Structure formats: C-alpha cells, structure tokens
C-alpha cells in the first residue's frame, strides 16, 4: 500500500496554549517500503504515527492510503483505526495482560468477528512465523522482554494489515537482543512486503533498517532520503550532527578567495577548497560557514607536515576496531578516528583535514 501525507499539520491545545506538533508534513511512502521516521524526542514522530493509525485527527491536510482518503481535515472525514486496518507495535508492547499469548494474537480477529477455525489457523501461523508457538498458553507477565516483543509483532501481522506502524519497538530490549531483532524485523518485512512506517530516535537503527529515512525536527521534515543520502549529503547541520556515529564535526570557518576558487580560513590557517565541496552551495568569499567533516576524514599523525594543523589530544576512547580521539585544534574541539593505539592524551599531533568530502553549511543555518 502507498501512503501519502499532504501538508499535514497537527496542533494540540494545552493549558500553556497551542502546541504545534507537526507542521506541513508532505510525505510519500511507496508500496512495500520500509520507511523510518528519525528524530530526537519531541520532534513529532510519534504524533505522525498516531495520525496515520487514526488515533489522532490532523488539524490540517490529508492522509491517503493508495487512492483512499483516510483523513481529511477540510471535510472532517476521518476513518477510525478499525476502518483503516493498520497494525501498531508499541514501545511498551501493550500486550493485554488478562489474556494469554494466544488470546492476544486472536484479539484483533475476534473483534473483527472472524470465524473460530480461521482465527486458530491465523494465530498458529503468526506464532510459527515469530517462533513463539510454545508460548501460546502463557500470560504476558510470564514472558521476558524479548518474548513480549515477539508476541507484539505477531499480534501485528496476524491479520494482514495494510501498513505496519512501529513506535520504537526495539528500544526496551537490551543491546544484543536489539541487534538480533533488527535483522529479523527487516527480513520479516521483506518477506511480507507490507509497507512499514518505523519511528526511532536511534540513527543506527534508522540507517540499518530503512529503505528511506525522514529526519524530523520540531515537527517539520528536515530531510528525506536513503540512508546513504543522509550520510553523504546531509541537508542541514542538524542532519549532519544527527546521522552518523560518532557525529560529524561542525567547525565554524570563514571563506576567503584563493586564486580562482575558495579557501576556508581556520584560525591562522588557510585550506584550499576542492571544487567538489563547493558544488551546490551559494557561498561566496567573506561568508561565514560551518564546515562539516566526518571523524574518518580527519587524519591524525605524529611529527610535522606542511599542510597539517597542530592539535592536542584531549581524550582517547578505544572503540574496538578504531580509536576515537578528541582533539583541541585552533580553539575548536574536533573528533577524529585513528587506528594508532599508541596515541595518548596531552600529546601534540598534526591533523590533516580531507576537504574533498567536506560539507559547507551557511552560517546560521
């Protein structure tokens, strides 16, 4: 199913006045796509999910499932969740505590008034898919977190929904289980081919799961793209900082003319800007800018080199394969990755910035 949102806005009235949770959201999720909404807490991503589910009504705009309008603020035509046939997986699982696992899986079918044999067949099938067949007689209280999560997902797939809505479904699992479930969830979604809208604040989860990702900030979409797009061409300093781990360095610089092209001025140093880094930006000499560099684009060396900047190591964090360094360079704190395990805090080093892949954002963006 294709999901379309046309300039959807959601406002909440509270004691402190009107809160704009979402502002002019335009979104198109293709049939069978795994689409991730990524953003910090309070950015409106859960509200967006509720709007699609039918748990909230949009204040403005329209939501369509294929060609069917499911919510239209102008005509006040809003289908209930029941009429939309969506499935929701909640962060806290939201299993019915008074029902067994089998009862939980059967619940949506019973409410829909399905026949007994059909319910039994669907429950067995969903339980087999999620490998929880032996838990069918247990109550949710007897299950571990991972098992509860499986039951919640099984309940979502049991009745062939038009769309899966997932609200941080993995964030209550421990790190190892989360990794395993991530892979499983992605395989399951591929196999079922059901359009999925997945909310998370974890950029690694978003990158590994999403076919495409929308980054939300303060109720508006900051950028939509494939994980690779977001990583390679962040549209704003916000996305640049949010996507990628460790996060991108953003260093305030001044642009100066150098021959035909431009150079960035960092403290007393002047670094020529390769043409590629300037592409698409309307920056001119004299402008201030934020220069974005990923930690892997900063090379740290001992000794002296002409085109390298002097820096002091302020902290060393081993991360396994690589070492994350925090460096003091021209009054700025920058992070770099290195594989030299002998570097120590306080050491004087030289850093070489690879500006070919640098991102320049206008000052104040």
């Amino acid at each position, binding site marked *: 199913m294709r999901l379309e949102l046309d300039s959807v806005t959601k406002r909440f009235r509270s004691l402190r006045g009107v809160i704009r949770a979402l502002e002019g959201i335009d979104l198109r999720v293709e049939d069978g796509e795994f689409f991730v909404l990524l953003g910090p807490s309070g950015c409106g991503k859960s509200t967006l999910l*509720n709007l699609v589910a039918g*748990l909230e009504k949009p204040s403005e705009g329209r939501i369509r499932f294929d060609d069917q309008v499911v919510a239209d603020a102008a005509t006040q035509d809003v289908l209930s969740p029941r009429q939309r046939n969506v499935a929701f997986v909640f962060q806290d699982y939201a*299993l019915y*505590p008074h029902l067994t696992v089998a009862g939980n899986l059967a619940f949506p079918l019973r*409410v829909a008034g399905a026949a007994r044999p059909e319910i039994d067949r669907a429950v067995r099938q969903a339980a087999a898919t999620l490998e929880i067949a032996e838990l069918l007689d247990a109550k949710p209280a007897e299950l571990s977190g991972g098992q*509860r999560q499986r039951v919640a997902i099984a309940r979502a797939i049991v009745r062939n929904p038009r769309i899966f809505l997932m609200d941080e479904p993995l964030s209550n699992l421990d790190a190892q289980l989360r990794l395993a479930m991530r892979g499983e969830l992605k395989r399951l979604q591929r196999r079922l081919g059901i359009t999925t809208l997945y909310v998370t604040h974890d950029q690694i989860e978003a990158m590994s799961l999403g076919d495409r990702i929308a980054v939300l900030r303060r109720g508006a979409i900051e950028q939509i793209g494939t994980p690779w797009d977001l990583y390679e061409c962040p549209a704003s300093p916000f996305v640049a900082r949010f996507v990628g781990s460790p996060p991108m360095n953003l260093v305030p610089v001044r642009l100066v003319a150098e021959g035909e092209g431009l150079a960035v001025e960092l403290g007393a140093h002047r670094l020529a800007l390769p043409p590629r880094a300037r592409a698409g930006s309307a920056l001119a000499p004299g402008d201030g800018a934020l220069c974005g560099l990923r930690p892997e684009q900063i090379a740290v060396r001992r000794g002296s080199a002409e085109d390298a900047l002097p820096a002091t190591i302020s902290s060393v964090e081993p991360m396994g394969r690589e070492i994350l360094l925090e460096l003091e360079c021209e009054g700025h704190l920058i992070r770099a990755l290195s594989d030299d395990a002998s570097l120590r805090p306080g050491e004087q080093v030289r850093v070489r910035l690879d500006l070919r892949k640098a991102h320049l954002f206008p000052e104040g963006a």
Partner: protein
Amino acid sequence: MSEEVWRRLLTAAGALFLVLFSLAPFLFMLLVSASGRPDFLTESVPFSVTLEHYARVLAAAELHFPRYLLNSCVVSLAAAAAAVLVASLAAYALTRLPVPSKMALLFGVLALSMFPQVSLVGHLFKMMSALHWINTYQALILPYAAWVLPLSVWIMVSYFLQIPRDLDRAAQVDGCSHLQVLARVLLPVARPGLFAVFLLAFIFCFNEFMFALMLTRDAAARTVPVGIALFEGLHGETPWGTIMAASAVTTVPVVAVTVAFQRHIISGLTRGAVKG
C-alpha cells in the same frame, strides 16, 4: 529477654487487643442472640443457650425478617451493580475521552457526596411520593446508586489511570470501539477495582438506614436495618434476643459476598501489560 522477643510479644499483644476490640461487639451479639435470658449480665440468672430467637427471626410471620433480608439483598445488589456500571462509563470518559474540565467534574462529584443524607431525604421523599414510588425497590435503588456513585467513580478513575494508555490505543488499532475498549480491555484489566467498588457499594447500601426508613412503609420494600430497628416486643419492650439473632443472620450475606469477591481483589493484575 532480648529486644527481639519483646518486640514480638508487644506486636502479638497489640494484635490481640485490636482483634478483641473489633470483635467484642460481634461476640456480644452472638452471645445475646443465643441466650435464653438477654438480661443475663445484670441479674444473677444462669446463662442458658437457646436457638429460640433464631427460630423466631426466621419463622415468625409477623416479623417479616426473611422478606427484609430479601429486600436488602435485591436493593443492594441492584444499586451496587448500577453504581459499578455508571462509574465504569464515567471513569472511561474522565480518563480516556476529551472531556473539558475533567478535574472540575471530578471534584464536583466529590463535593456532591459531601451533602449530609439528612439534607436530601426530605426532597427524596417528596420526589418519590410524586412518582408514587414510596415503598418500592426503585425508590431505594436509585438514591442508593446515586449516593455511592461518587466514591465508585473516584475508585474506578484511580484504577483506570494506572492502566497504560498504550493498552487502549492498541485495542483501538485492533479494531475496538470505545465501548469495546472498555468492556474487552479496561474492565478485565481493572477487575480488582471493579470488584472492590461493587463490594463497597453493596456494603454501603446494605447498611443504609435513613433513606430506607423514610422511603419504605412496610415489608414490601423495607430493608433489614430499618426492619430490625422497628422490632417490638409483645408489650413494647425491646426484644434484644430477636434483634441480635436478626443481626447475626444479616451478616451472612455480607460475609458471603465479601468472601466470594475478595479473591478477585488482588492487585498486580496489570503486570505484564507493558515492560516491567
């Protein structure tokens, strides 16, 4: 003796005192109800055991006691059931629906429950007279249900507030209407609260005196508390033995309902709904 032993002794003594203090009137009631001479404490007459009072209470037609008991049970059960039903709906609206000024409503309900009964009973009498309902079940059931409603609403609201909102959002997504969310998810999950409210409402109504005194006329609708209070001896004296025997019999349905319900009033039923 060590401090530990002292502490245990004192705890036991305190518990024993509390038990005796609470049970003494009840034991005295049983004693008097089974004694041949209710005045056995004041005169030097020997205590004699008899079941005569019980026989009289249960069998004597002029006392109408079995009928009072039936009236009490019917009225209390109906009023408690009505209160639970209305309180559940009210609590759902107050905790789950966009009702304006919820807190004002809740405190309004609480304020209403503070009217002394005596200030209401006159108006109730006029109202029931106008409806020609005096001496009927409904004359008691409606005021009783209304009277226990504030407490019922407050208890149900507090139970519903403990149930995570995601649970009813899940039920809505699974296709439930509001009423189905209430009936299929919230009420089963809030079962301890439901039974607690029912039990409290039942006991309140069962013990109620003033409304029953004013709104009933004879055995057709009169309840046990009023019936017992109006027992009279042959020569106008107070028939203590009969009163005590009747009181003892009256505790049976209350104890029965309590025992039947208390195993449902266990907390922790929401365990496992969300991560825990």
